[in-house]
């Protein structure tokens, strides 16, 4: 293909969008609407996902030690637990700190209940708080800690707790939420593709005659196809850029308006900075692909005439 023909196809593709004004408008609108719904759900899913991450990351393992465990043992255990691959961080919580924590957690009534348990009379053992990298591996990490205990003849650990049962239920829940989000987004993506490609097909159906005429004049299939390809891509890009702009602007407003209320609930929306690029690339990429896909598919059908 000669350079001037490539330029001609580009020019022609742009002109086609303008020539078929209302049809282009219809296609672009259908892209904007479908992708907007898709993008809205995508943002929702990303936030739900993020929320699930936040909740999951709060799970931790509590390792309680024998009352008479000495400092060398504590250091040794801390090292051994810290060496477990899944473990991110081991924090030592002394008995005093433990009491303080308990008091805080019990709130007002804590003062009365814990009266007289200070200093030497503190009944609580020393403990570790263990964080893992992947919350889902917490049960596995807990088991490893128990194995460390068994290997040690003095059995310095009295118990390993991570909310067994509850944590599993929590993970089931967060996983379900994630999967539902994924299914909805995937379903919407497919629906959007069909909706848009149908609109584009209709616009090209109206131009079936044109394709026939072009063939009569001696245009090769390639020659006919290229401007349609560019037209489809252009419609896809225009539609998806509009969508992305609306979506991201709307989202930034939402963050701004809701930050106080949601902050009270300890909910933090994913920032625009974190997902802006991802969402833009996804929406614009998808829109462009759908535009090209819709137009090439329909043109191919009529080229067989």
């Amino acid at each position, binding site marked *: 293909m000669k350079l001037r023909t490539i330029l001609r196809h580009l020019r022609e593709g742009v002109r*086609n969008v303008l020539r078929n004004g209302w049809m282009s408008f219809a296609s672009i609108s259908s892209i904007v609407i479908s992708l907007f719904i898709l993008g809205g759900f995508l943002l929702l899913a990303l936030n739900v996902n993020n929320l699930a991450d936040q909740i999951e990351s709060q799970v931790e393992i509590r390792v309680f030690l024998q009352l008479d465990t000495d400092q060398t043992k504590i250091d040794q255990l801390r090292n051994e637990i810290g060496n477990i691959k899944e473990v991110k961080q081991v924090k030592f919580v002394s008995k005093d700190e433990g009491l303080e924590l308990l008091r805080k957690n019990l709130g007002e009534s804590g003062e009365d209940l814990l009266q007289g348990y200070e200093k030497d009379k503190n009944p609580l053992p020393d403990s570790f708080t263990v964080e893992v990298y992947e919350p889902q591996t917490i049960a596995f990490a807990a088991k490893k800690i128990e194995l460390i205990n068994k290997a040690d003849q003095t059995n310095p650990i009295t118990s390993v707790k991570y909310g067994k049962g509850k944590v599993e239920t929590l993970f089931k829940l967060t996983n379900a939420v994630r999967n539902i989000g994924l299914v909805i987004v995937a379903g919407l993506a497919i629906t959007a593709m069909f909706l848009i490609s149908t609109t584009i097909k209709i616009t090209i159906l109206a131009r079936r005659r*044109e394709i026939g*005429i*072009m063939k009569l004049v*001696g*245009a*090769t299939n390639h020659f006919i196809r290229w401007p349609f390809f560019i037209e489809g891509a252009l419609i896809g890009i225009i539609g998806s850029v509009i969508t992305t702009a609306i979506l991201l602007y709307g989202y930034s407003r939402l963050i701004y308006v809701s930050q106080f209320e949601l902050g009270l609930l300890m909910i933090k929306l994913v920032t625009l900075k974190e997902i802006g690029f991802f969402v833009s690339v996804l929406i614009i990429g998808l829109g462009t692909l759908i535009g090209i896909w819709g137009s090439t598919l329909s043109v191919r059908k009529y080229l067989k005439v």
Partner: protein
Amino acid sequence: MIEMQDVWKTYADGTHALSGVSVLIERNEFVYLVGPSGAGKSTFMKLIYREEVPTKGQISVNGFNIGKLKPRKIPYVRRNIGVIFQDFRLLPKMTAYENVAFAMEVIEAPRRIIKKRTMEVLDLVGLKDRFNSLPAQLSGGEQQRIAIARAIVNSPAVIVADEPTGNLDPETSWGIMNLLEEINFRGTTIVMATHNREIVNTLRKRVIAIESGTIARDEARGEYGYEA
């Protein structure tokens, strides 16, 4: 220029459109194709510009064996055959200029030459001033002139016209005929299917009559020969 040897055409639905047609049309001839509707005139023309392939027999146009042509090669053959229809078949969203220029863009001509040649041809058909009009803004006769301009812009060896005056009033029809004669005079072979008795009997040319898929008559300076 155009040679058919024992050409048969049977459509998928069993219709026998042509049954054993043999004909030779020389370079620079002007041929009227007459006959009742449905007798095979359109099939005859479609075979020339390779819209259809013969079921049996050989057709050669401008040195190409049309029946054996690979689909990939069809566009290249069509560039040497200008086609004109009763319903004009212009691209509705393109201006007169763009419609004509399209045929030259297809052969990847340089823009400068496209511009020059397109305006030249528009001038020839008398519509230089309407170059920026859309087909819908032009009268039937003007649209047909644009279609003719498009057909001749690449200087084809053959022009195939399927009832080019079918939708036009008598006066406009004569204008179109003058144009076609002028094009023929410049060296282009023309095959024109028509029902217009007056034109055939006045502007005497070779007449090939097709009836029930066979050539019923082939006269050098023939007459229309049917009731109007």
